[in-house]
Each structure stands twice: as C-alpha cells, then as structure tokens.
C-alpha cells in the first residue's frame, strides 16, 4: 500500500473527501452570512439559530404533516425565509443607520432567544431525522466507503453556491442589488423599492441557512445547539474569505473544510483550533481577508 506522509493513501483520500463534505456546510452557511453582510452591512449572529430552525422545521414537517425530505428541502427554507422577513421588517431594519455593533448585539440576542425557546420545547438531546430512502446506503470508492447522502450534500451545496453567485454577479437583479448597497438613494431615484429588496436579500440569506439546516438534519444530531456549534467556525470562514465576498466565502468554505479534515488525522486535538490559526495568519498578512477589497 503506498503511503502519503506516513499515512496509508486510502485513509488520506478519505479524509480529503470528508473535508470537502464539511467544507460544503461551511461554504453554504458562510455564503448566507456574506450575502447578508455584503448587502445589508449586518453581522448576522442569528445565522446559526436559523440553520437550527431549518433542521427543526424539516423535522416538524415530517413528523406532523408527513412532508418528505425533498419537499422539506424546498419548504423549510421558504418558511424560515418568511420568518426572516418578519425579523427584518420588525427589528433589523431599524438598525441600518447605526453602528455594526448594534446589529451584532441584536442578532446575537435573537439567536439566544430562538435557541432558548427551542431548548425549552425540545430538550437538549434533540430529535431523530432519517436519511431519505433514495439516498441511503453507500458506494465503495475503493479507497473509502462513501455514504451516498454525503455525496448529495456536496453536490447540492455546490449547486446552491453556484446559483447564488450567478444571481448576484451575473443577473440584472444582482446588479441592482449591488448598486443599492453602494448608493441606495440613487437606486431608489430610479424607481426601485430598495427597502423591499433589502428585506428579500435578508430572507434569501436566511433561507440559505435553513437549506443547510435541512441538509444537515440526517447526519448531525438535530438539537437546539447545533447552530451554535457551527456559527463561530463559519464566522472565521467569512473573515478569512473577506467580509461580504461571495466568491471568497465559497472558496474558503471548501478549502478550510479540507484543512480541518487533514488536521483530524495529523493532530486530532487541534482540529477545532486550526481554522482560527489560519484566521490569525490571514488577518496579519491580508487584513481584508483573502478575497476582500481593502476599505
């Protein structure tokens, strides 16, 4: 058996692939954050809680209404997105004129409230959510046993990232949106309803989080803290990629997933820290992040 750096090659390939899978979640979550920050200038700390909400909505749909995974994948982001509209309209929209810090505090508070309510309702050990029957089982790739569902996760998030990037960078809606961030009064003068657009952008970012939540439900424990576990790492990903950079968050999401995966082989104890070490280095060398434009 041939070896890489003293480890059997199959193990290494397996770890690379796993890293990519985790990277898919990082990418999807940080994408939503980047969209919201880029367009609204709000650091959305409630993102993890909304990710968790997505998973719980999928669970509720399945258990109370018999709605299957595939429909939930569409429906849960819509429901959570609508919740996002309510949040934006009633609370977040009041903070656009204030310092970033207020948005951060508000969304952080919202996250605590949402998670607290979920904990009260569901307890802390969470609820079961099965893998959809079409995606059960695994493929033998020769070097590792690849669960079909994990392959689907990578595929689905890659497609979702691509769609989001295309909408924002290549369509006229995206162009208007970017223009509105640069100069809202001017865009409004052209007869475009900027506040509504901002609301929908927030809803879109939140829907991405919920989409990731539904993807995560069959493989992670669906519990009220599941978002809190992810959110800090995802923030590091956004900072490394460059605050507000769409492409940056996608590339760094996948890249850091791989780095974290490899750390789990070489020095498992350090795997929760490695992303932050990278963050410190990147901030020292490129304070605006890898893909960010210096202010």
């Amino acid at each position, binding site marked *: 058996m041939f070896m890489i750096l003293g480890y*059997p090659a*199959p*193990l290494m390939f*397996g*770890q690379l692939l*796993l*890293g990519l*899978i*985790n990277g898919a979640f990082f990418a999807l979550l940080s994408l939503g954050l980047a969209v919201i920050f880029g367009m609204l200038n709000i650091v959305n700390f409630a993102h993890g809680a909304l990710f968790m909400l997505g998973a719980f909505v999928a669970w509720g749909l399945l258990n109370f209404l018999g709605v299957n995974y595939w429909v939930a994948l569409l429906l849960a982001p819509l429901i959570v997105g609508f919740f996002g509209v309510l949040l934006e309209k009633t609370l977040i929209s009041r903070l656009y004129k204030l310092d970033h810090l207020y948005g951060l505090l508000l969304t952080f508070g919202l996250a605590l409230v949402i998670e*607290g309510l979920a*904990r009260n309702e569901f*307890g*802390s*050990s*969470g*609820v*079961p959510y*099965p*893998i959809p029957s079409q995606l059960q089982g*695994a493929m033998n790739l020769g070097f*590792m*046993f690849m*669960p079909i*569902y*994990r392959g689907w996760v990578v595929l689905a998030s890659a497609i979702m990232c691509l769609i989001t990037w295309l909408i924002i960078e290549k369509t006229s809606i995206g162009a208007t949106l970017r223009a509105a961030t640069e100069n809202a009064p001017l865009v409004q003068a052209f007869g475009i309803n900027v506040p509504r657009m901002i609301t929908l952008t927030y809803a879109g970012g939140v829907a991405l989080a919920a989409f990731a939540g539904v993807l995560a439900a069959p*493989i*992670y*424990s669906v*519990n009220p*803290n*599941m978002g809190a*576990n*992810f959110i*800090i790492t995802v923030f590091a990903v956004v900072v490394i990629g460059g605050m507000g950079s769409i492409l940056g968050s996608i590339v760094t999401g996948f890249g850091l997933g791989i780095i974290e*995966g490899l750390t*789990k*082989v070489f020095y*498992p*104890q*350090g*795997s*929760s*820290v490695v992303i932050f070490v990278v963050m410190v280095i990147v901030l020292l060398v490129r304070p605006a992040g890898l893909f960010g434009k210096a202010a």
Partner: protein
Amino acid sequence: MTISRRALIGTAAAATALPLAARAQSPTIRIGVLTDLSGPYQDIAGVVSGHATRQAVEEFASKGFNVEVLVADHQNKSDVGVAVSRQWIDRDGVDVIIDLANSAVSLAVSGVCKEKNKVCIATGAATSDLTGKACNPNTIHWVYDTYMLARSTGGAMAKAGGDTWFFITADYAFGHALTRDVSGFVTAAGGKVLGDVRTPFPGTTDFSSFLLQAQASKAKVVGLSNAGADTINSIKQAREFGITQKLGGLLVFLSDVHSLGLDVCQGLVLSESFYWDLNDRTRAFSERLKPKAPTKRPTMVQAGNYASILHYLKVANAMGAAEAKKDGAATVARMKATPTEDDCFGAGSIRADGRKIHPCYLFEVKKPAESKGPWDYYKLLATTPAEEAFRPLKDGGCAMVNA
C-alpha cells in the same frame, strides 16, 4: 391609600415572625435539586429530576415535619453551582443538595456540603473520584460512576470476543478517565487497545474522520468515551459510514437512545443501573411519575433522585427531623447504616466511602421490529451483582476507608 412607615415595619416584622413561629412547631426539611436546566444534561436530569424528587416527598407523606423542594440550574459551571449551594444553605436553610449532573459541579458542591455539614447526594455525576480521592463524610454517590460503566460495558464486550479496541475520546477529564478505566478491563481480559483518538471538546460535530481512523485500525470494538450530543453524533455517523465494528457506548442514557431512534441505535450495547421497563416495581414507579412528565420515561439519574430522597426522608424521620437538620455528617452516617429499599433499585446499601451499591445491567438496544413503541428500547443481556458492580472499597483511595 397611604402607608405609614411604622405600619410597614410592623407588617414586615409580623410577616417574618409568622413563618418562624410555624417553623418552631414542626421543622421543615429543605431539599435543593441542583441540576442542568438548560444545557446538554437537561434531558438526563433537568426538570424531571425535580419531579422525581417531589414524587418521593409525596409518597413519603409528612411524618411530623414539612418538606420543601427547591430546583435550580447550575449551568454546568462549578462556580455557579457553588454560589447557588451557599445561598441555599446560608439563606434558605437547605439541608440536602441532590442531582449534580456534571462531574465538575458535583466535586465542588460536595466540598461545600462538607464545609457546612449538610448532605450531598450526587445522582447525575459520573466521576468515581466522589467516592475515591475526593470522598467525604457528607457525600453519597448514588446511581452510577465511570468505574461501573467501564466494568460493565467494557468488561462484557471484551469477554464476548471484543478483544481489540479503538477509542474515540472526548478530550477532557471525563473522557480520559473513561478510556483509562475501560482500557484496564480490556487488557485485564487479555484484549488489546489499538488506538485512541482525542476529539476536541466541546465543539466537535463531525466524527466521520475519527470513525474512518477507527475503521482503518481494524479493531473489533469502537469505544465511545464521550457523552450527550457527541455520542449521538458518533453513533449516527458510524451508521452512515457503514462502520461494521461493534460500537461500545460507554455512557449512553435512555434519552439519548430516544433522540437517535432505534433505526440508528439498534444493537448498541450499554450499561445502566435503572430502566423503567426492568420489572414490575420500576414500571409501577414510572407509572406514578407519569402525571408529572407525561411524554417522558425516567432516566436512571431521575430515578436516583427519587430513590435517594426516599431513603433520606426515612432516615431523617427515624432520627428526628431536627437532628437531621443539625448534623449532615451524622445523617449520612445513619443513611449508610440503614439498608436501602425502593422501587427503582430494589434492596441495596451504602458503603463507608459513600458509594451506594446496587446491581448494574448490561442492555442491548432493540431492533425497530422488536420494539412495541416509544421508550420500549432495551433488552437485558447481563446483570452484574451489586458487590461486583463497583470499584472495591480498598482500591478507591478514600481516606475514610483507610482510617
């Protein structure tokens, strides 16, 4: 309406004097349930721990003294646990502190109870140090400990042909202790430990990488030295990746199995000292508790709260409530001298080092087809008798035993 200052002071004085007068006539024993109401252990202990304690109080019925139950959240922080305990003892007159689901909190609060000469009953804590190095005359450790789990699950699996092990260990004191204890039993049974991967705690959600390492080691058993959400994620992902090795869940509670579902959990081997569907008495207890927690079945920790408080109240009644309030160490000594008897753990006793001993049961999680419905999860594989289930008295290093 105006209230004169004099009238106000008078009313306040009367209000404080009244309960004092009442107290003088019949003493009130106060039980503080210090548990996790908001964190990872709220399902194994939590609110239902309070219900189970109240259940014991109601069943005992008053025998010439009053009993009050207080419940508080220790937030899994030792300093919070200590602060609440001191406030309870100094201000509210609490006599017994119970539950303490979290090893670190239990060790800290046990010290406070010794200092204030109150009674500490740890039902939710895992660390065997409570009756070892850290033992004291005011503390009783009721339900389980790391030694019991290691011996029952580890020893049984090693005997059943699981002679090579790979551990996935939560990287903190509890995980290390569990891996160490189980390794001891595995090697004693002629087995071998092939590897041990330490996963960051808290904050690890994806265990697939570690599971693949376990798979590559070709060990027959993958030992999970973790708890709560970590264990749930490990088991869920092991199924997903088609890990064919036996999984040894070293600390798995009924509530974890409920959360995972039988599809994922089937075949898992685990140890508990109480299961609601074990025999007629445990079923009867669970039925009685049902009105308080209709959607749940009690875990062994919650059952431990019921059983230990029942025993405490019997002893307090025998020695007189006023006596029991005055001297915690004397009450604990009396509790050790009195055999225990309850629906949850049957007949048992408390050793000199504070260890409550009772049988330990090895269970296997049922297949979905074998289960009759929610909470029908376990089938009994083996029973370790009370005398063998826990660490021998002389090996613990408890100063009270050697003295």
